[in-house]
């Protein structure tokens, strides 16, 4: 936008949000889904129809030069817009159905087909890691030269705030003498949270004063709480559900270690947020995480699905303050230099120029 570009965002409405507003110069157009359906896919196609209508209206105001969509959920609206506006389409694929849950039924196969179709219709496909590029090229047979790798970004300045570390920890049930092991993310199988929970007995065997804070929501929450209870560790684990952005920043800055135990992770932005907050990161060596974290320099790799390996990683960080400081220092510098939003915006603008024949 600083280069004089105009950005319009077409999105779904939310209770209380206006149909149109400008946020930091972005024109935001919200679409109302006037007709619903209990079936997820039917609902998704219905809201795409309404998004398409909103896109047509927004185009009268903005005169878009290109359309950029994220993932299959808005694929039909983006593809429709491409054809009725006669403008090129750029698509960012953050993950694939094949990677998220394997293909397991008609709805899943349809989502897979939608992802292929979206990649096919796009002039260029952006992915956030080389791992995802391999997935998109391998599974959908997208030519490699049509795919650009642009990582996600993190605003380090968001973490540049003073927090009362001890007060924050107490608020989340962690005493001054205790270690705070933090997980942040959705509570779904691909995030591997259950392996962290299963590692709790071993970690707390070494660090009796360890407490675990699990931030996030998801359909597995009741199962995970039950699991924590079954292994006799429920009292050590605080499931917070959603918390405010402000609390999340404060909590991350106050943690002793952040664990990202994913079994599938196209990028792994939580690891970057940990680095930006100057907290040591223990992460599975899978997918994009293996590109975001550098073992023994910006974080610690562990094997995914291995409770022993996760426990080892956490113990490695908690037991050596000098090593911890080394990881934190390197992690913070890496985020600031490689993953700033400014750098990512420039790379995205280059893709746009290329699509419009200006690059």
């Amino acid at each position, binding site marked *: 936008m600083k280069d004089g570009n105009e950005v319009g965002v077409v999105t779904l409405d*939310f*209770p*209380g949000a206006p149909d149109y507003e400008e946020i930091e110069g972005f024109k935001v157009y919200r679409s109302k*889904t*006037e*007709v*619903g*359906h*209990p*079936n*997820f896919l*039917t*609902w998704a196609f219905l809201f795409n129809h309404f998004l398409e209508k909103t896109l047509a209206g927004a185009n009268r105001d903005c005169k878009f030069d290109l359309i950029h969509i994220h993932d299959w*959920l808005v694929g039909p609206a983006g593809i429709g817009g491409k054809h009725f506006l006669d403008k090129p389409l750029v698509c960012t694929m953050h993950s694939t159905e094949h990677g998220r849950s394997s293909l397991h039924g008609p709805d899943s196969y349809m989502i897979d087909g939608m992802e292929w179709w979206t990649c096919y219709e796009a002039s260029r496909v952006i992915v956030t890691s080389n791992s995802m590029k391999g997935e998109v090229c391998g599974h959908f047979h997208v030519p490699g030269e049509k795919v650009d790798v642009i990582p996600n970004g993190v605003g380090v300045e968001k973490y540049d705030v003073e927090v009362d570390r001890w007060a924050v920890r107490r608020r989340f049930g962690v005493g001054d003498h205790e270690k705070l092991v933090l997980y942040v993310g*959705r*509570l*779904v*199988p691909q995030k591997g949270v*259950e392996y962290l929970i*299963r590692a709790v007995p071993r970690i707390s065997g070494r660090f009796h004063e360890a407490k675990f804070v699990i931030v*996030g*929501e*998801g*359909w*597995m929450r*009741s*199962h995970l709480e*039950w*699991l924590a209870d*079954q*292994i006799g560790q429920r009292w050590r684990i605080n499931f917070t559900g*959603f918390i405010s952005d402000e609390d999340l920043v404060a909590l991350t800055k106050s943690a002793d270690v952040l664990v990202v135990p994913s079994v599938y992770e196209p990028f792994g932005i939580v690891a970057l947020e940990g680095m930006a907050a100057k907290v040591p990161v223990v992460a599975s060596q899978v997918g994009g995480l293996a590109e975001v974290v550098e073992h023994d320099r910006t974080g610690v790799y562990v094997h995914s699905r291995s409770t022993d390996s996760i426990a080892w990683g956490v113990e490695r960080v908690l037991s050596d303050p000098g090593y911890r400081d080394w990881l934190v220092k390197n992690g913070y510098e890496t985020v600031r230099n490689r993953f700033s939003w400014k750098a990512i915006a420039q790379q995205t603008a280059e893709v746009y120029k290329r699509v419009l024949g200006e690059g």
Partner: protein
Amino acid sequence: MSRYPPVYPRAELPEEFRFLCMLHNVGAITAERSLAVADIAKWTNEEAPTIQEHLRRLGELGYVQSVRKDDQDRFHVSVMGIRKVLTLYS
């Protein structure tokens, strides 16, 4: 035998969350668009007692809110409920 329970003995989407998604998808996301139990039954093909039990549980969790309109209790997904649904879809 392992000391720990197996990985996914109960890790399925609980019925009340499947119901929450349906309520969301039919558009009951604000007080103005809230639905009575009879309307919800038409949309979801669920029996009224099942719906009432789901609504009671989801209400306790803060995912569903009710309003009184035309002498009827009408229900809609709360903002927290919408967030919950979005974690299931993303």
